[in-house]
């Protein structure tokens, strides 16, 4: 299965740089990346992958109900996340662990959700405007669109000041493109010219359902039916992901309305730890994508630019250290008290829930053995 010829690419799988007239504008944006930023891209991909794999192991050891791996999709996540600006607001689906990290949400906070300690895990306002994971497919596309409409109503886009104007970016997968909310969000976004970028990570599989069951046309072409400019990229290339997202976010924040990006990538692991991809995917396909792995090619690219072995070793060391801390911290996460059941169902007092909470507390207390005399 060759990569679509439509997909823009700056970094080839062998780590060399692609050229072409149609790439010049994007190359110019990628060229603005400093060596520090390039190192941050690499570091984020390597450390997130290590934590992600460790989280999968912890799940297998019974420490979590579920884990949702992002292995293989790091490039489009890291590239697009670094292309956002501090004032931007990000609506993830539930597999955007690299983006979470770059906006200030730790893997430990994500684990709280998967370990059954919370349905959230962080306050978006205090974590880089990175919203909570949404497990109902595509529901977040409408939240992002409404938020972006609000940016428009506030006059917080289109002033021409790229460091002040706001935009939103919403992530979703190929399975979600069949959900009605995805389509309604594009209708609303286009009607109100909302400053939003739709970022589709097409990882080719919705659990066991291949993308051909979702669509027989390339998914990015659907957006054009709504009049939304759209582009398809190699999602395993962090440079094109950065450049295209930067360009499109700045288009959106500058008053040019919604934009759509389809990143072709691959879910190297299972959908979740409840899944068994050996039942529906073949070795040949896995091999094809393994050869296009984002981290391998980016390491070659950085090496060619003169980044030293010491740097790569230091990143590996950091990954090992973080994994070790992560494991320790996950194991130390304790279950919340049962009173948490009733907290924050409403923002204002609710007498009937207060009665139920009081009843449960009394009921549970009645089982606690009385302490004997010391």
């Amino acid at each position: 299965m060759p990569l679509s010829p439509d997909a823009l690419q700056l970094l080839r799988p062998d780590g060399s740089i692609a050229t072409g007239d149609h790439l010049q504008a994007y190359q110019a944006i990628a060229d603005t990346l400093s060596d520090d930023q390039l190192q941050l891209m690499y570091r984020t991909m390597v450390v997130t992958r290590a934590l992600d794999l460790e989280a999968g192991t912890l799940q297998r050891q019974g420490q979590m109900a579920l884990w949702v791996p992002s292995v293989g999709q790091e490039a489009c996540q890291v590239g697009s996340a670094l292309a956002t600006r501090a004032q931007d607001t990000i609506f993830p689906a539930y597999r955007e662990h690299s983006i979470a990290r770059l906006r200030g949400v730790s893997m430990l906070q994500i684990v709280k959700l998967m370990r059954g300690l919370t349905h959230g895990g962080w306050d978006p306002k205090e974590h880089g405007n990175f919203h909570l994971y949404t497990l109902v497919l595509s529901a977040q596309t409408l939240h992002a669109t409404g938020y972006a409409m609000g940016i428009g109503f506030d006059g917080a886009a289109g002033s021409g000041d790229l460091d002040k104007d706001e935009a939103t970016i919403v992530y979703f997968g190929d399975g979600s493109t069949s959900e009605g909310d995805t389509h309604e969000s594009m209708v609303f976004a286009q009607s109100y010219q909302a400053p939003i970028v739709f970022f589709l990570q097409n990882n080719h599989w919705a659990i066991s359902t291949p993308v051909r069951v979702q669509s027989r046309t390339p998914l990015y072409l659907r957006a054009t039916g709504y009049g939304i400019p759209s582009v398809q990229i190699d999602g395993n290339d962090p440079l094109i992901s950065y450049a295209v997202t930067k360009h499109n976010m700045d288009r959106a924040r500058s008053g040019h309305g919604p934009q759509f990006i389809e990143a072709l990538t691959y879910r190297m692991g299972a959908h979740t730890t409840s899944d068994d991809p050996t039942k529906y995917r073949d070795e040949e396909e896995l091999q094809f994508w393994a050869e296009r792995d984002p981290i391998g090619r980016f390491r070659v690219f950085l090496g060619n630019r003169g980044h030293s072995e010491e740097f790569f070793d230091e990143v590996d060391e950091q990954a090992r250290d973080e994994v070790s801390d992560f494991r320790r911290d996950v194991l130390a996460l304790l279950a919340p008290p049962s009173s948490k059941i009733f907290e924050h169902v409403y923002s204002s007092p609710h007498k009937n829930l207060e009665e139920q909470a009081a009843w449960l507390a009394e009921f549970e207390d009645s089982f606690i053995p009385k302490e004997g005399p010391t």
Partner: protein
Amino acid sequence: MSTMTMAKALNEGLRAAMAADDKVLMFGEEVGQLGGVFRITEGLQREFGPTRVYDTPLAESGIVGTAIGLAMRGYRPVCEIQFDGFVFPAFDQITTQLAKLTYRHEGALSMPVVIRIPYGGHIGAVEHHQESPEAYFAHTPGLRVVSPATAHDAYWMIQDSISSPDPVIFLEPKSRYWQKGEVDTAARQAPMERAVVVREGNDVTLIGHGAMVSMLLQVAEIAEEEGTSVEVIDLRSVSPIDWDTLVASAQSTGRVVVAQEAPGNASVGSEIAATLAERAFYTLEAPVVRVSGFDTPFPPAQLESSYLPSVDRILDAIDRVMAY
């Protein structure tokens, strides 16, 4: 104090809320220039501009889903669903998203979204235009569900709903839209989560909400003439239910009839009957009786007078509880 229809009272209440807080937005299908199919939002776009009062694409999930995003941005969206039977394309956004986002954010995010829905029968309309879907929403934790019965309550309860930090399903009894009533714009009747005893009596308590309340008052008059003293409670808030008021009345009269347009199976009336049985068992003289729509789809309109609770069916229920 002035006399106006419930439709006008809602319009005035919306106007007052929009004037008081420029974060309040009003949107939905045809609510702008047309003023909504029932004209509840008439004139609001002219007064507050097309950014604060706007027409949406015809997509209910999109209306509620974008309302959630706007609330995240700091707005207080009020959206109109055109008819009761059209709310279900938005059901996922209401029940899995809107209702749960404050819980999911552990209190760091409020969801001050009001969803206005004209509901109920008695207007002879076609399919999907006469339904009473309150039980679906009352069953969903995180939502508040209210329904005014009078113009006065409509004026105040819409404002209370808009100022609530929680999402509110605001059910408007559309058959009452054109009924006039006294509206005191200086003082509300009671907080919106409180049930109100609108007529005092000794022998039997009638409980209902929305369009049922005026029918219950009519029933009470007739029963009184026949020698039965009837107390009438306007539920006002379907979720949460004000149990203190209901239990006190049940304990005082010992007999309760609940009337509702919705099908009786797993309904708000069922919840009232069950809870009163739990909390007022020793003072009840008779089982709580429900008068409901039947457990069928809302029938073709020519049959609605047999389907909906009527004065005679409620009087019959009073006879049944008085027989114990």
